[in-house]
């Protein structure tokens, strides 16, 4: 197999550079051929081979070291330890503005960038029309780049890359800046590039994009490789890890506010439902909702009740204090809302009844709970909800 990039035991320590004494020390140690070793360790012993024709997605939370890894790969920074071997024509688009100089016109920047990527002036002249067509920013090409929107900068940057025909395309989270149609254009171009045997390294927070474009994924966590392999297992593991972390986070928040000292949902009940299976309602039935909220300071809380499709699409929601409703006090600290959704117009399907508790001011959401239910019926209408209608002559 044709290895384009090999990374062996790469670690990166960003030296401390804030005080001038530290800078001077770093200077002296570099002068004597030593690498400054004190500082923030961003990458830790990473090994990676990028093979020709492969498309690799690099994922990981913010600050995991993804961008640093790309910078090491492209040769923008030197690793503190380890080796990087590159055997390919690389086109990289790191961060916004990818080396554009704000004071110069788009055209001048295209010239600079193209020459940086190894295009001769003649080649550039031949491909200039393609570049301008791809960027599609019209007369702005003669304006200074500092007057560009971030989307326009990315368009131009990517347009130059397409003209350079690299072996290996490395891109950071930049495509997300372009508008919908430009993103699609880029993705189409990348797909075509991959079909023609191109190699891709992509950093993205969008698992959708990673799964769509990459065969393999590398999950970077705290400067090390957490997982490496086929794209689906790795991205799923990553998402699962995120969910777990979010759950933990929420638990911590709950604990931070103290046990029982926040507006907690005590009970959310749908009349007719039991705990075993989702309750079923026929279209046109009434939906009786009972929502009990614990109030730590004994003031009447605000309740929110809504209906959500099983796939998460919100259908309807209502907030108690918007309608001037004050809950019934059951006992000290315990309040209850009783809501009836009359004559439900929901079309058959699975739904969730979703409730939130808020403070008496209606400013902060403290808790939420969902119960699922089903609506049954025979109808060929489409959508979520039946709108009152009549066919006229």
């Amino acid at each position, binding site marked *: 197999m044709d290895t384009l990039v090999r990374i062996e035991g790469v670690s990166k320590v960003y030296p401390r550079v804030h005080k001038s004494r530290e*800078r001077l020390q770093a200077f002296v140690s570099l002068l004597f051929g030593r690498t400054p070793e004190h500082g923030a360790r961003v990458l830790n012993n990473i090994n990676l081979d990028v093979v020709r024709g492969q498309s690799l997605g690099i994922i990981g939370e913010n600050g995991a070291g993804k961008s640093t890894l790309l910078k090491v790969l492209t040769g*923008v*920074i030197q690793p503190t330890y380890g080796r990087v071997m590159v055997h390919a024509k690389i086109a990289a688009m790191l961060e916004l503005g990818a080396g554009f100089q704000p*004071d110069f016109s788009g055209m001048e920047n295209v010239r600079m960038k193209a020459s*940086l990527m190894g295009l001769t002036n003649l080649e550039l002249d031949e491909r200039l029309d393609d570049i301008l067509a791809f960027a599609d920013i019209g007369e702005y090409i003669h304006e200074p780049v500092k007057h560009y929107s971030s989307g326009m900068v990315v368009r131009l940057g990517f347009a130059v890359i397409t003209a350079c025909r690299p072996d290996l395309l490395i891109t950071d989270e930049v495509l997300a800046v372009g508008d919908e149609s430009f993103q699609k254009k880029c993705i189409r171009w990348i797909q075509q590039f991959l079909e023609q045997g191109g190699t891709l390294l992509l950093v993205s927070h969008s698992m959708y994009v990673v799964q769509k474009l990459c065969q393999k994924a590398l999950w970077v966590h705290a400067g090390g490789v957490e997982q490496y392999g086929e794209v689906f297992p790795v991205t799923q593991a990553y998402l699962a890890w995120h969910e777990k972390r979010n759950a933990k986070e929420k638990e911590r928040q709950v604990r931070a506010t103290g046990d029982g000292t926040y507006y907690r949902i005590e009970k959310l009940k749908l009349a007719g439902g039991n705990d075993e299976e989702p309750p079923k309602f026929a279209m046109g039935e009434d939906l009786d909702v009972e929502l009990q909220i614990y109030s730590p300071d004994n003031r009447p809380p605000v309740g929110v009740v809504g209906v959500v499709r099983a796939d998460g699409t919100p259908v309807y929601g209502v907030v108690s204090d918007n309608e001037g409703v004050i809950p019934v006090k059951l006992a000290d600290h315990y309040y209850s809302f009783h809501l009836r959704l009359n004559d439900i117009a929901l079309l058959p399907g699975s739904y969730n009844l979703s409730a939130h508790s808020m403070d008496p001011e209606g400013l902060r959401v403290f808790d939420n709970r969902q119960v699922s239910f089903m609506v049954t019926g025979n109808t060929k209408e489409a959508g979520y909800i039946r709108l009152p209608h009549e066919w006229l002559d």
Partner: protein
Amino acid sequence: MIPEKKKQFNWVFFQNLVVRQIRQDYLENITGFAWLILQPLILLAVYAFVFSTIFQARLPEAEEIGFVPYLAVAFWPWTAFSEAILRANNSITANGSLIGKVAFATAQIPLATVTATFIMHLIGYLAVLVVLQLMGTDMHWAYLPLVLPVMVLMWIFACAISLFTSAIQVFVRDLAQILPPLMTFWFFTTPILYSSSHLPPVIQKLTEWNPMAWFVARLRELLLFGEVNVDYKSLLIVLFIAIFAWASFRFFHRFSGHFEDFL
């Protein structure tokens, strides 16, 4: 598998850098270009006034040439040299955004700055030489082709110094404050405003080891007196600059991979 690809000197990119630098520094506005000629011209007038009128400076070996041509022939190359070094000093820091995002041979940046400054001042130099001729100074135009290698050598010298200073500047920001007075000191210790024959013998001996004094002397010889003086010392200077340039590249490469960490 080829080991890590060396970041190579990219000729097309370098050309673009030089052109851009020239446009940015000199052609951005019409006055920029005018000042390129005007500023040294005014300085020249000031020095000429102060030295020939107030101090009544005498030039024993160039009585018939006069002070102004004597000064001008040396002053423009010095301006190019000094301005190139001062501009290049900040060039790495100023191009931090580029260095942090694209991998390329960083040395091209200070080198392009030095080159752009030299090109622009050489144009000014030629204009001044023509003006001197029109004002009645007998310039030795036949020796003009020999001026070129002298200027190229001076350019290499400026490049080498800039590789040192611009690399150090990334780590020691104070250099930007230290360098201008150092260059002023160098200016006054180089026989530009005066002839080295004015100097006490001890300092005259020392001045012989100042490469800039050598450059200035050669330029005056060629253009004002039509003499060519190549001796063992010239060879030593060439050798010194060659070694110095090589050392500057080695020095720069030791640091260039780490610039991004310190920008």
